[in-house]
């Protein structure tokens, strides 16, 4: 299911959020700041919130 995920750019180091579904077909992504394709999905935003609450 598509969810908002936290992505980290492996080039400039910035974090940003984007819709992502690990099970769906991949699409080309790039960092909104430096346009690099080295962007890594870290975790979905909900899990961050859960961690913060926990």
């Amino acid at each position, binding site marked *: 299911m598509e969810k908002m995920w936290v992505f980290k750019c492996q080039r400039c180091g910035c974090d940003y959020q984007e819709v992502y579904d690990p099970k769906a077909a*991949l699409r080309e992504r790039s960092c909104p700041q430096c346009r*690099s394709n080295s962007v890594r999905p870290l975790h979905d935003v909900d899990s961050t919130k859960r961690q913060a609450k926990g």
Partner: protein
Amino acid sequence: MMDAGRHPLIKLMSYSEIEDVNGYVGNFKVTVRKKARYVDETVCNSCGECEKVCPAIHPDEFQMGLATRKAVHLPFPQAVPSAYLINMENCLGTNPIACGKCAEVCEKNAINYDMQDEIVVLDIGAIVVATGIDVYDPTQQDEYGYTRFQNVITSMEFERLICAGGPTVGHLVRPGDHTTPLRIGFIQCVGSRSLRDGAGFCSNICCMNTVKDTLLIRDHYPDAECSVFYIDIRAFGKGFEDLYDKSREAGVKYIRGIPGEITEDPATGNLRMVVENTTTRSIEEHEFDMIVLSVGVRPRADGGDIRRHLTLSQTSDGFLMEAHPKLKPVDAPTRGVYIAGCAEAPKDVKESVTQASAAAARAGVLLNAGKVTVEAITCTIDNDLCHGCGACEKVCPYGAITVDKGAKTAAVVEAACAGCGTCGSACRFDAITMRHFTDAQIVAQVDALLAERQSGKVIVFACNWCSYAGGDTAGTSRMLYPASNRLIRTMCSGRISEEFVLRAFRKGAPIVLVSGCHFADCHYIDANRQTVKRVYRLWKQLEKLGIRTERLQLEWISAAEGPKFQKTMREMEELRAQVTQEEIDHTVKVLTEQFEKRRLKKVRS
């Protein structure tokens, strides 16, 4: 269509759908569902008696809902075969028979309510995909009031209204009150060239279609005034500019500007709009009797099925992708499959016919030759090593591998294999060898590049078609990039296995870059999606081992992107300069330990 229908060597299967496609070039097995027409097409002589007595009336899809048809109907006047069919969703019922009037009047006894769908399996040598397009539905652009205002119609509906075979027998009337409109406005680019409406592309055909429509109106109704609101008129192609000039000379007004909103005068049904004329830089108000939305085109909504059956690729716009835009414009990436018409991109009739002729000729060449020449870069499978896990079968973009899980073996159809090497990277048992790009050859390149001065080098894995060619573009354009970047070429980035990357780090590489084609450009359908998955896994693995994930980079560079290649190489050099010798030593130590552990485990097992 008539010629095709009568040709002794052409078997026309209308009202049919592809269920499945198996096999490979020259040996396709195509399963076709021939839908039940409930009328025997070999007997029906299209007398039309059944249609006269049928009581079930429904909107006629061919006439864009501007006329009606019966449940038993001829799909369109020139349909081939010229035989009626019953739409069972519209019929009053056959179990039990609720009406049966069509069967009663049919002198040829062609009506058969018990007819069932027929599954036909065909042996096919080559396939031409000409599945066409869908037309944009402007309902979602509420500002134009389509479906809210009766006198706002689409260009497709206009085609039916002005057509001699249309619902009004060619008399142009506005749907609101059936009077002849004398002030007609055309709005261009509705659903085209706008990312907001889901299509950034130009639909190619709408400008000239509008020019033709305005000329028809001026010819049939000399008193009618036509105004066209446009972004820019794209009248390219033979004779198109002349036609555009002719339209202007005929008195059609071309106003550069797209209206923001259409409002309706409820009393008269007339339509008003305000538009900024960007040529005169003035705000203008216009009133029309009828407005035609020149709607764009869309890839077919059911295009995914045909793509899946034939392992085809699509562009970012959703149209089918050709094997090569210049050298193989009608070939699909799958051998033995060709593309024609708007399935590939929006195009007019002339271009569609040209492409269809080319596709037929390409298919003819293939079939007449009776054999295919394949590149030597294909995979081979050693079944002594194969465990039948099916990983290769899963990642092969061409469906060229079949796995027998029971026998723990796999087989590759070399005629279908295109040589991307994705299977070789996915195989955990070293059972797959990619000819000319073997593991040993690539590992030897990694080792040779990192034999000395490792800390001063960046290992760049580049795919043959795009990234490596991007490097060539940069080189031929005299774009300097740091000499620390050392390239290893593979046919596809999908060939770059996790082991190659880890080996480079283990041998002391400070930075490794994996590069390939942009998603829409992948020469092996979607093999580079496996590259992404692999890089994601590697980042996770590096993080677990305490290695900075930033040292593994990923970039999509096309063959034309020389500047991007140069920029990326410079950035890699900057990243390399930030990697310390201690960091490299730590990486080498950690990865060597991990490698030894795995090796011992493998030996023991």
